[in-house]
């Protein structure tokens, strides 16, 4: 109660400051008068009495100050005073202030920008209802090295029926659609989802409704649109619900629209991570449900029942796996190579975040180090300033300011700097965030959710306070505690305090260099590994190659002969275009992760890990177009068609792995499920199937014309209807694109051509991830190098200007300019070397963390370590040279006279 009253009174005093001050003045003067009256009564003259009373009371100002200090609000007020004073002092030295604020703004801004991403991606729960219970299910054959396989339709439906651990289970499958009606036909990425998926995510639609369970069946053509598609294609008109759109030339009724920030599926899991523009019911066909062992491409999401742990769900998954296995047809089961089927369960959040965590943490650490360097830099500036302020501080101490009071005063200055820097940094982050996200690779989830909430403000505020203490404390401690006597007598030019100052600054600079070295080594490793990536032989020649995807709707092309006929005609049509040198068609292009199949090889026992082989179907002059070299045997000819003996071309890697030391020509292999044997007729060079830098897999090429009708026409396998056209052209690939599209439309005006790209672009975007890491870390490292160069320059320049006297004496006593030069250079180099020793040790410990980001370079690559250290020492030498030169120009007479 009493405390509350005191707090209230404090507030009142704050707001009625004038009144309470006035009363205090009046009270004191009344005291003085009473005292004087008393003395008059005792016989003094009025004048004498007043003087004596004044003497007795002492300074009225001191009394007032003490009365004020009795209330808590005083501390608050004097804080305000400190800040005002700090503002005045900083305004008086705009150069220093600008430099410090900008340095801090860059440091804090970089941290804030990156933190906004880290916050959304790593710290926030996924933007769905109760996300911690959302699980990702896989099939797994851990004994043969496949712990996480997407589901097949029959396996999924068994899990859905048999499981007890989950409230609901649903499947997701990426599906591209040709969207027509309302303007130009368009290729869009959509997804088939079980009816249970939307309720499981718990995000309500902005318009309309979700699928009903009875709509999750073939023939129920309904669709839910994403906000983006609704806006871009349908102008956001609200009557879209109930309207009919055409997907793959089938009418679908729009039943709902999802909200703006709803993104699904999310990147991260191994399949089905492309954010969809629309969703249709999964609606398994009977053929899909009978497709045992055929197609494993469903992501499965489930909501864990209350009270069930992930471990329990996992152990149920083991039992379910065994149950599913017992249902498998015997001839499919042998492709498991004797491994037991299990169903592992993972939290979805972890599946999404796991892949990007190392990258984000490395970058976060890097910006943290940049901020540390910025702090060290500002700290050296502050120490230099301390010299200029030594007299002021000494006077204040002599007048009775305690060390703690001065410390508070000086820290207020640091705080002000940090807060202004932080505010500016927040602005920088706000702009920088967009640029950062534009560069970011696609596997960073939820980029559109990265925002600046109250959490961000709190982070920037917190980090500003932290930096203020970090860069302000040591200089403030040093400044506030300087030797009083000496400062007053010698005006701050005393040698001993000078030494202490140089030592403190030297420490900062050495630390700065060490930290910069860590960053530079990190960046150096990434640059070297990026160089290796650029230098890898891709196995094909991307220059002057134009590619595009020509997907065919199943309705218009239901059977194998129509599909074959279309693509064969297409390949002939485009070959005759002027400017086209070669034309080929393939179901997947280099660098696109090819579809892997397990193969049976004649004469090889089916035990252990099954041969997983990338498979590409080719038509026309594909090898010539891509310039994939033929190493042995022959290429396909038009005579390799459905009427001739089935043939295959294997990659060198495949030949080496399965027929080491033998001639693979004439050997035979076959697809799973007792397909006919096919004979090897040629060996082609290795090509990167996946992103650049991924190890190459064994690869086989099959003539498109020889694909069995069941593979081509069966609804289950749609790849045959989305072949890619590849053209080697004479000039700029992009210039020819429209002519090619026109030629496609002359065959079928309704085909929606997709993914038109020049191959060099594809190569470049395949490097987007490493480029992001490398350029970002290089940027940070460059900034760090720049800051530490400024740091060492500043310290030496300052030291030289402080020691002109000493240098003057030395020169008067016969020191040569080159002695002086060497003296200053040696000083700078010593600091840099000290930092380098510390930096190399730290880098050894830290670069191990980025092993996963490197390609072809060890985490402690000696060449990088040595090269970067030399670079840093060179920069240090350069930065020391300017002040060293200036030292040699000292005129002994001038230097001595100015003392």
């Amino acid at each position, binding site marked *: 109660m*009493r405390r509350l*009253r*005191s707090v209230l*009174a*404090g507030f009142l005093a704050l707001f009625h400051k004038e009144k309470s001050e006035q*009363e*205090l003045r*009046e*009270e*004191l003067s*009344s*005291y003085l*008068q*009473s*005292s004087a*009256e*008393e003395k008059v009564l005792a016989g003094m003259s009025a004048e004498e009495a007043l003087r004596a009373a004044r003497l*007795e*009371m*002492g300074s009225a100002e*001191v*009394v007032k100050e*003490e*009365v004020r*200090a*009795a*209330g808590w609000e005083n501390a608050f007020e004097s804080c305000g005073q400190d800040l005002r004073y700090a503002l005045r002092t900083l305004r008086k030295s705009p150069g220093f202030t600008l430099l410090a604020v900008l340095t801090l703004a860059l440091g804090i801004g970089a941290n804030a920008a990156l933190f906004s991403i880290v916050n959304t991606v790593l710290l926030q729960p996924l933007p769905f209802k109760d996300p911690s219970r959302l699980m990702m299910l896989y099939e797994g054959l851990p004994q043969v090295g496949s712990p996480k396989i997407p589901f097949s339709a029959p396996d999924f439906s068994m899990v859905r029926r048999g499981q007890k651990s989950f409230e609901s289970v649903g499947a997701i499958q990426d599906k591209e659609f040709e969207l027509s009606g309302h303007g130009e036909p368009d290729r869009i990425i959509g997804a088939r989802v079980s009816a249970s998926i939307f309720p499981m995510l718990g995000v309500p639609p902005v318009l309309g409704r979700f699928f009903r369970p009875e709509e999750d069946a073939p023939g129920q053509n309904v669709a839910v649109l994403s906000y983006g598609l609704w806006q871009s294609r349908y102008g956001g008109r609200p009557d879209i619900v109930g309207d009919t759109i055409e997907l793959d030339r089938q009418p679908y009724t729009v039943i709902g629209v999802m909200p703006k920030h709803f993104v699904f599926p999310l990147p991260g899991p191994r399949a089905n991570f492309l954010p969809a523009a629309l969703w249709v019911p999964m609606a398994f066909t009977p053929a899909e449900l009978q497709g045992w062992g055929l197609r494993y491409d469903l992501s499965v999401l489930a909501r864990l029942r209350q009270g069930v742990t992930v471990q329990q769900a996992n152990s149920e998954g083991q039992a379910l796996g065994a149950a599913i296995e017992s249902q498998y047809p015997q001839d499919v089961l042998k492709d498991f190579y004797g491994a037991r089927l299990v169903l592992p369960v993972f939290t979805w959040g972890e599946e999404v975040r796991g892949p990007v965590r190392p990258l984000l943490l490395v970058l976060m650490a890097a910006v943290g180090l940049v901020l540390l360097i910025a702090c060290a830099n500002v700290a050296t500036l502050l120490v230099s300033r301390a010299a200029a302020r030594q007299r002021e501080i000494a006077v204040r101490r002599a007048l009775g300011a305690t060390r703690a009071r001065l410390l508070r005063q000086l820290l207020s200055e640091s705080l002000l700097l940090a807060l202004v820097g932080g505010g500016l940094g927040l602005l920088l982050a706000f702009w920088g965030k967009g640029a950062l996200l534009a560069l970011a690779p696609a596997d960073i989830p939820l980029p559109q959710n990265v925002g600046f909430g109250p959490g961000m403000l709190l982070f920037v505020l917190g980090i500003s306070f932290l930096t203020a203490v970090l860069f302000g404390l040591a200089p403030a401690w040093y400044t506030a505690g300087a030797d009083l006597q000496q400062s007053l007598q010698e005006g701050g030019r005393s040698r001993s305090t000078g030494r202490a100052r140089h030592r403190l600054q030297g420490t900062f600079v050495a630390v700065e260099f060490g930290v910069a070295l860590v960053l530079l080594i990190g960046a150096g490793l990434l640059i070297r590994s990026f160089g290796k990536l650029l230098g890898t032989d891709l196995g094909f020649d991307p220059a002057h190659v134009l590619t595009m995807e020509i997907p065919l709707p199943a309705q218009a092309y239901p059977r194998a002969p129509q599909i074959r006929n279309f693509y064969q005609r297409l390949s002939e049509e485009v070959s005759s275009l002027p400017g086209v040198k070669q034309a080929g068609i393939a179901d997947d292009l280099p660098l696109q992760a090819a579809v892997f199949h397990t193969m049976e090889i004649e004469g090889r026992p089916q035990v252990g890990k099954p041969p997983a082989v990338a498979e590409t179907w080719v038509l026309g002059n594909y090898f010539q177009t891509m310039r994939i070299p033929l190493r042995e045997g022959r290429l396909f000819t038009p005579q390799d068609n459905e009427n001739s003996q089935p043939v295959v071309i294997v990659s060198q890697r495949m030949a080496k792995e399965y027929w080491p030391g033998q001639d693979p020509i004439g050997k035979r292999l076959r697809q799973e499920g007792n397909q006919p044997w096919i004979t090897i007729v040629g060996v082609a060079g290795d090509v990167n199937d996946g992103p650049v830098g991924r190890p190459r897999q064994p690869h086989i090429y099959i003539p498109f014309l020889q694909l069995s009708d069941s593979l081509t026409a069966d609804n289950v396998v749609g790849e045959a209807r989305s072949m890619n056209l590849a053209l080697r052209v004479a000039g700029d690939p992009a210039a020819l694109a429209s002519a090619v599209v026109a030629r496609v439309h002359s065959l079928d005006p309704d085909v929606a051509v997709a993914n038109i790209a020049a191959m060099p672009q594809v190569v470049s975007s395949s490097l987007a991830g490493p480029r992001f890491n490398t350029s970002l870390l290089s940027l940070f490292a460059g900034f760090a190098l720049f800051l530490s160069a400024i740091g060492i320059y500043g310290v030496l320049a300052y030291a030289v200007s402080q020691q002109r006297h000493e240098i003057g004496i030395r020169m008067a006593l016969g020191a040569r300019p080159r002695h002086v030069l060497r003296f200053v250079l040696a000083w700078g180099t010593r600091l840099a070397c000290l930092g380098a020793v510390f930096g190399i040790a730290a880098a050894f410990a830290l670069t191990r963390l980025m092993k996963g980001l490197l390609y072809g370079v060890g985490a402690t690559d000696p060449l990088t370590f040595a090269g970067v250290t030399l670079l840093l020492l060179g920069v240090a030498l350069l930065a020391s040279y300017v002040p060293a030169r200036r030292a040699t120009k000292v005129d002994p007479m001038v230097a001595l006279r100015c003392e």
Partner: protein
Amino acid sequence: MPAKPAELVQGTLDMLILKTLALEPLHGYGIGLRIRQISRGVFQVNPGSLFPAFRRLERQGLIKADWRATENNRRAKYYILTEAGRKKLKHETRDWETQTAAIARILAASMGEL
């Protein structure tokens, strides 16, 4: 010259002010004077300690202020003991007596009593 005024025991000033005000409301100078008189000049409280103490006690609600006319017809800030102040004084006096009695016993102790 009177003997050098004694230092107040830490924390006792508040109690002395409350006691002085328990007799009658007084203004600042009056309180200082009264303490000096009653202690026969042993305690001389300077304004630098007195006024912060007033502010403190006022904040705690132990005394309250009232602007009144002095005997010489000048405006002065008089301090009045509140009910809470009276209770506090009683409490503090009891504590003080217990403590001083104990201290006196310790100081008066001789070997024989042990």
